[in-house]
């Protein structure tokens, strides 16, 4: 009995030594809708490096061309979570959809770009006045265009905008159906290769693209274990990308083979900042975009409670310092 008593004294000491990252309990399924672009690299690296599986997750990816469709998939209940640029999140929150934002996973100021056809007399930003500009409506590209025009002193009424889906970017531009086009960085290199000198390029330093990991708030709160494991895996992927640039590009290139060339990914890679965050840049971007929708007359309600949409505990559990926004503690 004396020995048992001694063991009972020593056991807490021993158990306090060392830790164990290995997931315990049964494997958990999780479905994530994603937009199949290099901006989603954190997910692809986490998958390829086995971080998701190692965390005890069986993740199913549902690929889409744009984040808006990925988020719709989640809202339709076909997936648990979605990754998307900020615009669909802002629009849905304006509509009162109870989204929960787990983290921004990528930030870039160069993800959207505007190209103009030289043959249509476009050489500088001011030449866009009176021109027809293609844009994927309902996506971040639309907000990018508005910021670009505003900062260049062009009024929205001075241009005509038409909806173009990413799959039609090259065809629409080559056919001259538009004078200019807003496109994602990952498409820019390929179009430049095919259309060469016909194009003139514009970017805006007043705009940031942010990729968000989101889902219905209730779904997120109902799956705390799966969410915690996912955040752990993504955090490891972030560390890996920070320290293994070329391998990470190779992983993404393999994952998006047939859709993006490795060289194109490599060219744009350094403009991406892959990091799990809940920060003021995310909040500021969403508020600015919401304000723009309101100013444009596209939204007439009250500004959504973006801070209230943040679900910070899962990220705080793995990267406490990355939650730079003060949020109330959630259950």
């Amino acid at each position: 009995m004396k020995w048992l008593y001694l063991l009972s004294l020593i056991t807490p000491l021993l158990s306090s030594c060392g830790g164990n990252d290995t997931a315990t309990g049964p494997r958990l399924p999780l479905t994530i809708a994603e937009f199949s672009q290099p901006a989603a690299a954190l997910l692809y690296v986490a998958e390829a490096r086995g971080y998701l599986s190692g965390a005890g997750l069986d993740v199913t990816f549902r690929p889409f061309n744009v984040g808006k469709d990925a988020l719709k998939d989640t809202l339709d209940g076909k997936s648990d979570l979605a990754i998307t640029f900020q615009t669909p999140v802002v629009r849905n929150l304006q509509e009162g959809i109870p989204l929960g934002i787990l983290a921004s996973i990528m930030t870039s100021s160069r993800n959207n770009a505007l190209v103009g056809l030289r043959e249509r007399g476009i050489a500088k930003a001011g030449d866009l006045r009176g021109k027809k500009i293609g844009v994927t409506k309902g996506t971040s590209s639309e907000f990018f265009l508005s910021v670009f025009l505003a900062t260049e002193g062009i009024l929205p009424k001075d241009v005509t905008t038409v909806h173009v889906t990413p799959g039609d970017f090259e065809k629409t531009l080559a056919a001259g159906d538009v004078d200019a086009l807003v496109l994602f960085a990952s498409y820019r290199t390929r179009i430049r290769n095919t259309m060469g000198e016909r194009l003139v390029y514009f970017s805006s330093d007043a705009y940031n693209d942010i990729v968000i990991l989101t889902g219905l708030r209730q779904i997120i709160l109902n799956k705390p274990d799966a969410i915690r494991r996912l955040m752990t895996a993504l955090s490891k992927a972030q560390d890996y990308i920070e320290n293994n640039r070329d391998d990470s590009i190779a992983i993404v290139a393999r994952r998006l083979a047939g859709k993006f060339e490795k060289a194109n990914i490599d060219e744009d890679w350094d403009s991406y900042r892959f990091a799990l965050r809940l920060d003021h840049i995310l909040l500021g971007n969403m508020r600015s975009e919401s304000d723009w929708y309101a100013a444009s007359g596209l939204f007439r309600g009250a500004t959504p409670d973006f801070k209230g949409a943040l679900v910070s505990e899962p990220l705080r559990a793995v990267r406490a310092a990355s939650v730079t926004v003060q949020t109330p503690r959630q259950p």
Partner: protein
Amino acid sequence: MRVGLKLLVPQLLQFLLLLLVCGMIVFNLYTEYETLSRSHGRMETRVELAERLKSMRADNVLRVLAYANRRDPAQLHGFARYEEEVSVILTEYAALTTENEERLLLDTVADAQQRITESRTALINAIDSGNAMQQDAAFQRWEIHRRLLDASLNDLAGYALNRLRAAVNRVDAQRAYALTIAAYGALAFVLLIMLGTHFVRRYVSLPLERLTTAIDGIARGDLSLNMQPELAGRRDEFGNIARAFTNMTVRLKDIHSTLEDRVQKRTLQLDASVKELEAFAYSVSHDLRVPLRAIDGFSHMLEQRYREQLDDEARRLIGVVRDNSQKMGRLIDDILAFSRMGRQEITWNTVDMNALAQAAAEELAPHDKGRRFELQIGTLPSAQGNNAMLRQVWINLISNAIKFSSPKAHPKIEIGACRDDQEQVYYVKDNGVGFDMQYASKLFGVFQRLHGVDEFEGTGIGLAIVKRIVSRHGGRVWAEAQLNEGATLYFALPLAGTQGAETPDQYYLKENA
């Protein structure tokens, strides 16, 4: 060094080793704590720098708005100073961090700062140009960049604050961990000491004590001590020793028992032989007295009846015959007395030694014919013993003193006593002829004489009788002397009385051993 102490030494070394290990752990924890504290200091500085950037940015916004409202050229200097200070702070901040994520945030701030510098310049130019459309566009761009800078600065400050909080938590946790380690270490230390002491006591010290007790018992002759089952049942070295000792004890008991039987038989045989010899000597001595008396008696008759017929030479020869037969008679009397003193059972009483010595001196007074002797009798304490036998002791010692001091012109005899813790010592001192101390050991032997019979008459048995009587009382005798200076003869009786006294059998055994 005792075995227990020797065993304690390696144990203490182990404890010291444990103490050293605990000390190293605590030292490492302390070092880590120091590192964390330094890191904590750097983080505090980063938080301060981020907050300073935020404060400066707010001032700069007011400066831009002031210029837009009043076109105050003085504000232009403020812009340059602000941008220079921001650059210095960002450089200072970058030197304080090695974290990738924080450096990304810092890059974002630097990038936003670069953008707002450009947009502020464009805004100033647009304001100066007076072009309203340009001013609107430039202002919108500046406003977007202002918000971006605000956000990036807030994020940087938030991140630095989070890291600081985490560092504080880590420091607290480290401190708590160090305390826990120290507490458990101390507990383990105490437990080990207790366990070690317990084991040494149980498995080494106690068996050693039992073995020592058993061996002491054997040394005292107590062979009844049995080490089983506590020790002999053990399967270690102590068990082996205990079993060996048990076997040895059994054999010793056997040998002892055999020896006792043999000694008892031999003692009985010896006792019988001694008694037989004593009886023989007594008988011989007793039987010799009759013919000796006859020789003396008939020699006397011959001398008386035929005095007239005998010539001088015949009378001289008869005198020689009578003298020698009388000497022989005294010798036989002394031998018989000596023998009797060994055989006689002692009847114990409290003896007034003062009276006894006084009586003996008076009895011997006729021998001091000229009343020349100076006799001093001191206070003599009473003794436990046989009155008649002790009287004989005094008579023999005093007569001995008279005899050997009589040649002196002023003979002096001193009788006294003294005592120590265990015995009462009596002595008779004279200023007689004394003797050479090298012969002192022979003084109390039978027929031992240190002076020629021509000088001092006697049988050489008187002091042997003294020694026998005193020995029978459990005491001892000895003498101190100097040739021609006198002698002191001592006898000592035990204060405990009958304790140490010997029965005749014991006496004979000792005397004849």
